[in-house]
């Protein structure tokens, strides 16, 4: 299936290659570079590029292109999903997935890639299994290894490979048994000029960090499971019990994992926690433009809106912006024309605003489009859909675990058209 993998950085250098079958010359990447040149933005490179003898399927993450070489028919999503899994694994192992991190850990990267694919077919992609095969590098282990000459390659076949719960390693032991769940919801919205909502959706995930001894069997129930319209599960969740009782019952993997992602049914009206007042205008004939932006909270159920970041791609004709923020800092990049304003926390008593003027190219006609405003924010301790976890129970083990649930709402793709 997957013949070879090339890793290409932002400046177009191939800095790692791995072949699972016969070696494919790296000149095959020339077709990729051609496509890269044609694309105006790095994101615009088509994910699938046909070449005379091969097909290149690429994903772009952390400014690195992961280019897989395929020789014959294969579902493209299969390859794309796998490449993303590779990136996730690297991130899991090295903390970050950057060119430097990959180059520093090239041996571990190679060992990982060797275990993840056999002859181009995925072999072990579960993080729990991989970590038993190849221990993640830590400073302590690196030091110990250099002194004792021991290795970070496991000697045993991971038990998970063979058991009925392949996602969990056996023999897990903790002195503090704890299980944390984060309910994170993201609001995707498009708000039109007049402030009315064109489309708004809530997507959520439950990320878990479970550190429990032995083989615990957990059940998680919700106060209002009917809110969840469409869900996808980690393989550990028993589908049938969800179908019958709307209860999540599972034997968790060890460590961090995403238990569930969900979509809140579209019948429910979505509360939009911030509003934007804006006045961005260009006058015909003058080389000046006005820029006024005010943010305010609404429907936040008394919670503070934090980490607010506003960004906007100004029209090409704008030369510079001379603005005055009432709080936070702003930057304007005259090359990319990207304006970003780091607002911080919104104080409902004193609404943050950004006002001032923009200078335009003299003689140029007024831009006929007003920029879109992208907003990011966070609200702690609130799930905007109203989803609530009812209880978490553990069976199968004797000890009392420490349990914790955290809620958070974030902006997803939150855009305001002006």
């Amino acid at each position: 299936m997957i013949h070879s993998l090339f890793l290409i950085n932002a400046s177009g250098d191939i800095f790692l290659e791995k072949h699972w079958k016969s070696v494919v010359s790296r000149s095959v990447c020339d077709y990729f570079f051609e496509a890269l040149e044609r694309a105006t933005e790095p994101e615009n490179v088509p994910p699938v590029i046909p070449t005379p003898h091969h097909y290149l399927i690429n994903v772009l993450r952390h400014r690195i292109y992961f280019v897989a070489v395929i020789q014959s028919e294969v579902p493209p999503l299969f390859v794309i999903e796998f490449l993303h899994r590779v990136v996730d694994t690297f991130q899991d192992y090295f903390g970050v997935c950057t060119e430097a991190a990959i180059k520093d850990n090239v041996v571990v990267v190679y060992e990982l890639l060797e275990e993840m694919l056999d002859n181009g077919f995925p072999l072990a992609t579960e993080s729990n299994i991989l970590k038993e095969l190849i221990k993640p590098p830590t400073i302590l282990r690196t030091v110990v290894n250099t002194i004792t000459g021991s290795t970070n390659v496991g000697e045993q076949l991971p038990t998970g490979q063979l058991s009925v719960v392949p996602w969990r390693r056996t023999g897990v032991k903790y002195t503090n048994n704890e299980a944390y769940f984060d309910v994170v919801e993201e609001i995707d919205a498009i708000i039109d000029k007049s402030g009315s909502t064109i489309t708004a959706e809530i997507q959520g995930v439950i990320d878990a960090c479970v550190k429990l001894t032995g083989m615990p069997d957990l059940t998680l129930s919700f106060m209002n499971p009917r809110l969840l319209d469409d869900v996808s599960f980690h393989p550990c969740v028993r589908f049938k019990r969800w179908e019958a009782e709307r209860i999540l019952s599972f034997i968790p993997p060890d460590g961090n994992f995403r238990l569930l992602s969900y979509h809140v049914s579209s019948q429910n009206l979505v509360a939009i926690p911030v509003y934007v007042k804006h006045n961005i205008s260009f006058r015909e004939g003058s080389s000046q433009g006005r820029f006024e932006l005010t943010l305010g909270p609404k429907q936040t159920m008394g919670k503070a809106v934090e980490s607010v970041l506003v960004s906007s791609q100004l029209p090409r004709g704008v030369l510079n912006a001379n603005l005055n923020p009432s709080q936070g800092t702003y930057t304007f990049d005259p090359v990319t024309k990207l304006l970003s304003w780091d607002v911080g926390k919104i104080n409902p008593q004193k609404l943050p605003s950004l006002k001032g003027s923009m200078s335009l190219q003299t003689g140029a006609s007024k831009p006929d489009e007003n920029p879109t405003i992208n907003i990011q924010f966070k609200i702690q301790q609130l799930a905007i859909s109203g989803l609530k976890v009812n209880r978490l129970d553990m069976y199968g083990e004797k000890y009392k675990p420490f349990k914790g649930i955290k809620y958070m709402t974030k902006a997803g793709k939150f855009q305001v058209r002006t």
Partner: protein
Amino acid sequence: MLSPWFLCRNEDLKEMLESNKESLKLEAMKRIVGLIAKGKNASELFPAVVKNVASKNIELKKLVYVYLVRYAEEQQDLALLSISTFQRALKDPNQLIRASALRVLSSIRVPIIVPIMMLAIKEAATDLSPYVRKTAAHAIQKLYSLDPDQKEHLIEVIEKLLKDKSTLVAGSVVMAFEEVCPDRIDLIHKNYRKLCNLLVDVEEWGQVVIIHMLTRYARTQFVSPWREDAVFDENSAKAFYDSEEERRVDQSKPYIMDPDHRLLLRNTKPLLQSRNTAVVMAVSQLYWHLAPKHELSIITKSLVRLLRSHREVQYIVLQNIATMSIQRKGMFEPFMKSFYVRSTDATHIKTLKLEILTNLANEANISTILREFQTYVKSQDKAFAAATIQAIGCCATNISEVTDTCLNGLVLLLSNRDETVVAESVVVIKKLLQTQPSQHSDIIKHMAKLFDNITVPMARASILWLMGEYCEHVPKIAPDVLRKMAKTFTDEEDIVKLQIVNLAAKLYLTNSKQTKLLTQYILNLGKYDQNYDIRDRTRFIRQLIVPNEKSGALSKYARRILMAPKPAPVLQSAFKDRDRFQLGTLSHTLNSQASGYLELSDWPAVAPDQSVRNVEVVEPVKETGAPALSKSKHFDAVSWPVCVSLQASSPVFVPETSHELLHRMTGKGLSAQYRFTRQPCIYGNSMVSLQLTLSNSTDQALENIHISEKSSTGQNIHRFNAIERLEPQASVTVSMGVDFNDSTQAANFQLCTKEDEFSVSIQPAVGELLLPITMSEADFTKEQGKLVGMNESSATITMTPENVSSQSVNRKVVSVANLGVIPSGQENIYRFSGKTVSSGSLVLVSVVLKDPDAVITINTEKTVMGSMLLRQVKTALTNSGP
């Protein structure tokens, strides 16, 4: 750390590899791997590296493997030195070592060792470890690509491995099947049901491969579930109603879906909830290609959910949705807003979304879509703005009600400042006017006015063509435009020049008085143009329109040739015939056949023999909810390490009868019924699982139905989760677990609503406090021997004649008690076994027929239960009737 002086120096690396220190060797190998990763050539070191293949250090060994696999092809002779090490490792008692030896051995692409590989694969295919067998399945593909002549032998191995019942092997062997012999569909028959049932437990990558293979298989084996006359691309408006129509058709000619076809659809459905996008897409395409049309809608939500994923995933999913939405608008219409474009989307995502929105447009939603399009036209991304204009054109032709609105909107765009937008508008207007050959002279006049400001050649050419085509509608303006063009002719682009000549010719034919001289002039200019196409065209036009003695019969028809009514261009989606490819494939994405693409066959007119899929051993799971069972299997194996001999098996018989818990009169409208599911309880292993059906017969909703915390009388009860709200006339089924402590004492508790509390009690029959187990006849007699004396109770009864048959005895006993049937060697002895739910004590029942009497014997430690059970079995067997 060693000094950088060592770096990349082959001599030094060699020295390090030959040293005695493990750590130095390891360091050297790490650097070599670094070189390989960078794509540098390290083949020179082969001899030094290969010596370390038998190293004890496992990391060193692995790195040597990496090196070996990379360079063995180039250094075949030297690579052979390592083979004996692997051959030895293949016999190692550790399965991990056996597997990795096979992995590397089969990855060494050296033709000489083909026989050794073949032997190793055959051996590994019968290995006890499923992990080794999985590796064998992978090795099959490697050997096949190295030496295709081995195909026949490899197929034998595949056939053997396909029979494997391990979920670990299934995905890999199907992959090998797809690669080596995808046409040998006959190998699948016997394994079809097994694969369907295993599917949920196979790892995710294997699922994708198996689903794609089964899609192909199903298309050759089952008849079409679609209506006879259902053309594949039926009108979407009908889509909503066609389940009804289908039923009507069904009445005239009943279509019964093959149970195997249904099995596949049912077992793949839960996978729509997978976190792996490839699995979701695979199931979606399976439903698209195999499911009856009215069942198709279940995939919509899942596909829309995938749009939240990474950019690349979106791209592929949107492409597939685009193809689907052409044929079935109804599927995605409710989700239209999910396809709205955001300014941060990549251009190819934007265009795909636009495509889908265009496909979804109908009379009802067109105004919303057009409003949305208006925003897009103003986008900074001009390529996207141009694509939007095209999309508006498409909507205008497809939906006649809005054609005029669209046209007016497009005309407004003609005064846009951006050239590409104007050009695109002109081109689209041209197409629209052509499809709408009515009186649009205003628009043409307007365009003529704008003509001077438009510089994009394609747009200019389009306007000129329009002038010529409809010159009769604008008799005053057209000659004037021609006059202007005559002035600038030499400076124009080639396509514009061709259109000027064209316009001149048409005007000459319709209005020769005014334009005769102008035409002559333009034709003269064209005659000496640099471009031969233009010279050629000019010469041709001149012969055609200007009559002279040499021109033949053709010029008589000049008018009919030039002014012939032209068919309007069809504006259609680029995804119009993408469905010739199976969805979700690479070929579909590229819209051209990729190498190795396997065509999806048409449904057969008559279904091939379905008995080919029958397996000799009867599979009890065939028709039950397989995914559920297999998921709960995990549960059994993990959380109840019960003594193996007492492992509970699935119930033989589950009675449908339910018992009343609360009558609606006493419950003020709330009624409750319960029944025993006879399944192992998921809440705790000493509990009896119950199913409760609550219904509301009042005309008001009941709120907060739950079991009170304090109530129960000693028994441990797992309460169902509070039901927030039960609508009038609605009913809901919940499950709960009660630990009866192996006694028939009733469990009393309070069933509460928001306002009231009702005391209820569940009195279990003794037979419901058991779980069936299976054991051999020999074990049974052995166990029975241990439970004698006090633990044995027996009775003799006279059987009614109709109860004497073996079937009826079995049925009577299992309906009274949840027991497992033990296959019996003797004809007149029936044996049943089970264990009590709470304490897990063995309960053995045997019925010995001695015409006309029968002796019932019950052996169990729980003597009270034994005697109660005896009484019930006695009653059941003496009673006649069903």
